[in-house]
């Protein structure tokens, strides 16, 4: 192969790489229906970006093999581009958040934005791997073998990429149960033994007792215990639940804001959530809570606190789960 415009174009690795990259992006797209994007326009922009990253990934190795080093540097350009995708997503979500009653919070927003950036890299990575395998086989065996090897590499790398994208929810790390909302010392709102806030207006207290729902959250793994202590994670919980079951709240009614707080002053590690839901279905509320993503910013804290210890004793779990 000589450098310059006369090098043969390897359509098989390029084509397979593009298809594999786009498939990887499409499969990853399926899991974000709950947070974002919610509209076809959002899907179109993400699929387009996924396609572009797949193209760049797919031509990387064929370009190198053809000694087209300039073409390979396009990869660098792409990385810069995807970083700006994250910035764009962050800005967009932040501006939406400023007009949301129960905000996602910065931790959740960064998590979503970063996920979008990562998924473009994953699409690109899948395309690179597929085209490398396919071209190497193509150079030594026949076209048929190249297609077969490319498809196999695509399946394996897509599987690896999808398992990387993880996207854990709280379901694996906390257990939840409906608790009893009550007031202590006149106006302090509690769910079981977790104090949430001070409600000064008598009529607001009546409203909470009549229509409010309280949930007690107990960690069942060390990750769960660490996550609950994260303020971002609890804001994400309040946002998720409010978004999925609705909250009878508005501007001008701050005392109805859904809250998720830790049990204090003891701090044994349980958290409480209270809201006045639109759909008063406790099971739905619990499911909404468990479907909250475990935030990346909260994911790496692993703690062992009394609430977790108690849960482990009750469920006969060895320490270190």
């Amino acid at each position, binding site marked *: 192969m000589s450098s310059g415009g006369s090098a043969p174009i390897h359509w098989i690795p390029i084509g397979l790489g593009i298809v594999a990259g786009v498939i990887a992006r499409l499969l990853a797209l399926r899991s974000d229906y709950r947070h974002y994007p919610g509209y076809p326009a959002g899907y179109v922009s993400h699929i387009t970006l996924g396609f572009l990253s797949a193209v760049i990934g797919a031509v990387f190795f064929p370009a190198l093999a053809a000694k087209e080093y300039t073409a390979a540097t396009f990869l660098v350009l792409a990385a810069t581009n995807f970083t700006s995708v994250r910035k764009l997503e962050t800005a967009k979500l932040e501006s939406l958040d400023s007009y*949301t*009653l129960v905000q996602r919070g910065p931790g959740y927003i960064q998590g979503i934005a970063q996920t979008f950036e990562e998924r473009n890299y994953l699409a690109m990575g899948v395309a690179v791997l597929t085209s490398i395998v396919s071209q190497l086989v193509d150079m030594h065996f026949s076209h048929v073998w190249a297609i077969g090897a490319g498809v196999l590499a695509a399946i394996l790398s897509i599987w690896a990429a999808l398992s990387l994208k993880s996207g854990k929810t709280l379901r694996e790390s906390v257990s939840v149960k409906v608790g009893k909302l009550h007031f202590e010392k006149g*106006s302090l709102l509690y769910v079981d033994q977790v104090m949430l806030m001070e409600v000064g*207006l008598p009529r607001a207290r009546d409203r909470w007792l009549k229509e409010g729902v309280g949930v007690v959250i107990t960690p069942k793994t060390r990750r769960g215990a660490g996550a609950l202590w994260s*303020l971002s994670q609890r804001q994400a919980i309040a*946002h998720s639940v409010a978004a999925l079951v609705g909250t009878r709240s508005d501007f001008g*009614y*701050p005392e109805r804001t859904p809250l998720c707080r830790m049990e204090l002053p003891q701090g044994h590690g349980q958290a409480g959530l209270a809201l006045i839901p639109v759909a008063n279905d406790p099971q739905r509320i619990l499911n909404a809570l468990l479907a909250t993503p475990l935030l990346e910013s909260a994911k790496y804290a692993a703690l062992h606190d009394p609430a977790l210890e108690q849960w482990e004793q009750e469920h006969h779990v060895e320490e270190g789960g």
Partner: protein
Amino acid sequence: MSGMPSSNPIYAIVTLKGPDEVQGGFAPVFYVKSQEEQERISVWISRISSVAVHDMQDGTWLLIPI
């Protein structure tokens, strides 16, 4: 509106106590004669400005943005 817990300054004070006991620094003070009046004024300011009402349990209510 902010869902983030914060240390916001007091927006207004609505009290059953007299000026000799409760005085405003930077926050306006509403002196009221009955609990009904206290509730009415507090609810209105709360609805208009979206501030939370907190009962200090001694006849004084603090209105604080959340």
